[in-house]
């Protein structure tokens, strides 16, 4: 570690540790710095400690956690060594924070104008009313919000998600701080809104010379936005370096694995999962935390590798750093023979509404048998309603549904065989499994419901289906709470598979999962589709995932399908203006090959 401080750095973190009470370290030995106008990306999967670092930069730790040691120099002053009052003065004025979910981070009881006023009153009590208004107007203009009194009198729920996030940004830049810490500020936003907010942020940092720490799990966003990247794994920095270096030739096996795992919109690359899952806080291994999942591990990995210089201004914590450029593995390309395809399900003129609110307008879609069709749209476009209508779970729906050459009712009243043949997998695996049943019971219940088999046969079925989703048979007597998110989603998939379905409806099934786990689920779906000829409707908002998983794509906007076609054609030469905007606004991991 270099002890000589960078004189002009706005942020300098040295040996920061945050622990859980006196217990295990949430993050440890964190050191990095940020220069004026520079955006630093802090990347990690859930549980890697990125949010703890973000709040520690403002001298705060969540309830139960303690900043154990280290220093955080912001603008030359160690925020951890200050007393409470001085720290309060620095927060907001020298270093500010933008939280993850704008809908939760704005007080529902307060008008946004009053929130802005409050910050000025607290930090600049000498400023008069006119001065405050001028500052608010300036900050609003910076983030692209109107500063009209009508707008400032609104409550957060009267704003769109993008506006809410802009209000949080305005609060953060109001006092012209030196440093902004952003904790996944765009995860809750649609891609188009996200692209605009990111552009605003980039301009702010460049023009004002504000340093920024951008915490995220989304590598594509980080690549589009930041100048340098710090990669976290299990609470420690495993690699840091400039963006180009890190994305082109990552040295740590975890960084490489992570990049291989991200599905990307720009081309069809094989998505390769990292085996296993990140260790929980209390059972992080003694040595290199990544070693259990690493293909390069050796005996030396039992000792924690220090963060060492590796090439020019790069640091890697690994005993076996990888040299050289990262090569994409091209996907095994599967030319969809659309000429001979046969539709398994044909939907005609589907309209659905909730009360007076119509969400689907005359949607026509056919799902080719044995292929995966992706249904893409932003939140509120009606994609979940459409997929729920397929299983008969929407009451107020009209249209025709031809399944396997047979006309079936759209709204409920289906026989048991049809219900078995169409299976639905839910978005959130944490809520889709009965917490009071073991994995085995969950699967048996489904099997016994649809097939007249004996209990012993059901147990055999359970063992077989667990193997198909690559789960150990020992998991059968465990409860869902004992499983990781990826394992739970596999159980949910197994519950659908045990019914021997023909059509699988996957409603954003990877959006609650980490990238490396998401890749494994995508892999599994592709494999199941190949081996069993499953037809899949994959609902998502992530075009990268679409590229990795789908054969055909239908784009849904405001309850209407605006474009439909094979995945490569649609993503490479989108025709509809909405699709074009979606493709253009999606962050990319790789340069587009024209």
């Amino acid at each position: 570690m270099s002890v000589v401080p960078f004189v002009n750095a706005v942020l300098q973190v040295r040996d920061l540790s945050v622990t859980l009470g006196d217990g295990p370290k949430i993050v440890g030995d964190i050191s990095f710095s940020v220069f004026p106008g520079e955006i630093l990306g802090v990347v990690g999967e859930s549980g890697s400690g990125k949010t703890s670092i973000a709040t520690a930069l403002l001298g705060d730790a969540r309830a139960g956690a303690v900043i154990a040691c280290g220093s955080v120099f912001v603008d030359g002053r160690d925020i951890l060594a200050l007393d409470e009052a001085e720290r309060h003065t620095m927060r907001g004025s020298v270093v500010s924070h933008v939280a993850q979910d704008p809908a939760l981070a704005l007080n529902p009881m307060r008008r946004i104008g009053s929130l802005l006023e409050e910050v000025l009153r607290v930090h600049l009590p000498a400023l008069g009313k006119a001065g405050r208004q001028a500052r608010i107007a300036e900050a609003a203009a910076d983030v692209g919000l109107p500063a009209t009194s009508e707008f400032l009198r609104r409550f957060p729920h009267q704003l769109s998600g993008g506006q809410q996030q802009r209000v949080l940004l305005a609060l953060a830049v109001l006092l012209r701080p030196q440093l902004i810490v952003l904790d996944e500020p765009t995860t809750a936003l649609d891609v188009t809104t996200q692209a605009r907010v990111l552009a605003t942020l980039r301009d702010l940092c460049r023009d004002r010379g504000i340093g920024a720490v951008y915490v995220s799990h989304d590598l594509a966003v980080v690549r589009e936005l930041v100048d340098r990247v710090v990669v976290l794994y299990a609470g420690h920095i495993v690699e840091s370096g400039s963006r180009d270096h890190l994305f082109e030739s990552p040295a740590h096996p975890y960084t490489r694995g992570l990049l291989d795992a991200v599905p990307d919109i720009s081309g069809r690359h094989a998505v390769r999962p990292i085996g296993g899952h990140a260790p929980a806080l209390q059972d992080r291994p003694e040595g290199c935390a990544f070693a259990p999942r690493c293909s390069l591990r050796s005996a030396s990995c039992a000792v924690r590798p220090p963060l060492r210089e590796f090439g020019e201004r790069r640091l890697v914590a690994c005993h076996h750093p990888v040299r050289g450029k990262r090569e994409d593995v091209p996907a095994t390309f599967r030319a969809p023979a659309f000429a001979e395809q046969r539709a398994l399900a044909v939907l005609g003129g589907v309209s659905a509404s909730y009360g007076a609110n119509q969400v689907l307008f005359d949607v026509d879609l056919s799902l080719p048998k044995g292929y995966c069709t992706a249904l893409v749209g932003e939140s509120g476009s009606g994609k979940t309603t459409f997929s729920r209508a397929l299983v008969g779970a929407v009451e107020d729906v009209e249209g025709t549904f031809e399944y396997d050459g047979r006309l079936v009712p759209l709204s409920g009243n289906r026989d048991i065989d049809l219900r078995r043949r169409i299976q639905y997998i839910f978005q959130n695996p944490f809520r889709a499994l009965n917490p009071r049943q073991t994995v085995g019971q969950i699967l048996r219940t489904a099997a016994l419901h649809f097939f007249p088999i004996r209990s012993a046969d059901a147990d055999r079925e359970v063992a077989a289906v667990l193997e198909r989703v690559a789960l150990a048979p020992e998991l059968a007597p465990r409860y869902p709470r004992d499983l990781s998110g990826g394992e739970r989603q596999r159980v949910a998939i197994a519950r659908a598979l045990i019914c021997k379905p023909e059509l699988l409806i996957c409603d954003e099934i990877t959006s609650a999962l980490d990238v490396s786990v998401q890749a494994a689920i995508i892999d599994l779906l592709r494999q199941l589709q190949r081996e069993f000829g499953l037809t899949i409707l994959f609902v998502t908002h992530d075009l990268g995932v679409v590229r990795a998983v789908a054969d055909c794509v239908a784009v849904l906007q405001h309850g209407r399908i605006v474009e439909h076609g094979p995945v490569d054609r649609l993503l490479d030469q989108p025709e509809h203006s909405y699709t074009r905007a979606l493709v253009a606004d999606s962050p990319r991991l790789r340069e587009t090959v024209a």
Partner: protein
Amino acid sequence: MATIYSEQTPRAVSPSQTDDTVAHNAGAPGSEGFALPSWLPWLGGRVLSGLATAFVISVLVFAATQALPSDPARVILGPDATEDSIRVLQQQLGLDQPILVQYGRWAARAMTGEFGVSLDSNVPAGQIVADRFGNSAALMAIVLVLAVPIAFLGGVALAIRRDSRIDSWTMNAVILFKALPGFVLAIGLILLFSTTVFPILPAVSLIDPAISPFLQPLYLVLPALTLILTVAPFLLRLVRSAMIETLEADYVAAARLRGIPERRVVWGHAVPNALVPVIQGIALTSRMLLGGGLIVEVVFSYPGIGNALNAAIELRDVPVIQVITLTMAVGVVFINLLADVATVLVTPKLRTSSRPRLRAGTRAKLKLKAGGV
């Protein structure tokens, strides 16, 4: 606490409005101060449903008293009366009429404030209840005025010092008081303050009906103290848990990270958000006091509505029973209405919505949160 409440329809901001267009057409109800509030139709509906509830209650009260097999004529004339005289009285009272006609007459008279004459004292039943109700309302007012601020400040203070020694001690004491039935507490207080230990307060509330009970405070102390000790712990726990929940909310963390001083964070950001459960909790307490004051009134012989009801039931004084139960029931409906209106007024999201809705099960959830009543 926005989780308890929801709008009936999904968010009005439809996806067709992009980031920028929303700015010009999303609701601007806040800007026109003098325009009719958008929740007014909701209030109208709520009042109508309150009236409907009152009607149903009146049917039930009537059915439960007048139409039951026990014959008021027999009760009035006593066991020695002849069949003929009973029949005559039945005719006079209209008891030989079809039940619907009886209800119609009773309801029509009740609308004009005429509830019949007490069978016991020949005083109009409405008159008795008005006096007694005034006494009970006075007691209730004192209890609420003292218990609510104590519980509110205490709950906020404990939520801030969560898991400290003071917090855990107070919570233990609170559980102790909750475990004691009201009458045990009342008797305990009498033993302590009215008998040998500190003979300073009257054990019986001999309130002079001619003077306002507020002018005879000595008689109010023990009943009020008992009720405060039963009610305040419940409210305290409610405020504490509501405050703990809001203090952990993202927007409170965000305010702290903006450098807002802690005092301002608590009173300006957290407390307003904890108000909704507290309002519903106060309503729950008021409803409890309306009926639950009975035991305390009996123990202290406090001349309130509960005591009157108790006496009327003992004497089978049907008109008085009817008017008291009806008053109590309508009171409960009114308290609920008041609480829901207050909830809508303090919650911007509901205030600006045209169809605010209280989700089912909220009250049950509240009770659960405060560990039962």
